[in-house]
């Protein structure tokens, strides 16, 4: 019994550490009204307060988002673009990303946030 629980313990310890290394290190904004994310439909875009933008764990410049997103949307039209943006980011960057998404016709977006408890 102790062995099994110990294995499970190690499993959760490892997965907890893994999650933090996805995308860019950011602190998400807080919001109360967030709705559940449908993980399998999401395409994540990360932006931090140093104006770095990352898609699929690769840094991209803002002007190229259009091309990258268009390519992904050719395979799956129902994707929702998830904005993982640091709360201290200048809105200008968000606005430029949204302009790129309009070019790529990616109209469904969601702003990822964390609930009140963290």
């Amino acid at each position: 019994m102790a062995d099994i629980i110990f294995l499970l313990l190690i499993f959760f310890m490892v997965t907890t550490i893994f999650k933090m290394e996805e995308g860019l290190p950011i602190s998400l904004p807080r919001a109360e009204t967030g709705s559940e994310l449908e993980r399998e439909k999401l395409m994540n875009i990360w932006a931090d307060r140093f104006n770095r933008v990352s898609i699929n764990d690769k840094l991209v410049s803002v002007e190229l988002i259009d091309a990258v997103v268009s390519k992904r949307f050719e395979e799956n039209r129902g994707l929702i673009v998830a904005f993982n943006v640091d709360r201290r980011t200048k809105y200008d960057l968000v606005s430029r990303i949204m302009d790129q998404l309009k070019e790529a016709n990616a109209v469904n977006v969601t702003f990822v946030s964390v609930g009140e408890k963290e």
Partner: protein
Amino acid sequence: MIKKRSKISAEFNTASMSDINFLLLIFFLVSTMFAVEKGLPMALPGQQSKSVKLKRDNVLTIQAFANGSIVIRGTGPVGVQDLRQIIENKLIANPKLVVVIETHPDAEYSVMIDILDELRLANAERISLRTMKSS
């Protein structure tokens, strides 16, 4: 010959080991799920979408400035905490109201999210995002 047996056992009691592990397990389980990420969904206008002309009375513009202050155009500065009540009242007065969030390029992203969150709390459904022309 008399065998001398030591009566002190060299083992320690491992019965409580699983309890400790179980507690740790529960701790990590719970802490993994704490950071619940949720999304504020929004539909952006696409390439083909035509611009719709709206009556001036049906549009309410909320401006977010670079210093974090929030201003309702035509009314004046408001605090984030009062926004929900104001929007609720305006929506009762005019259910066709379209709320435009106009954010300054130098404003922080979290200000826009705060406003968006308040609008969703007030059940505003027609929301539009706009970037302020920096002058």
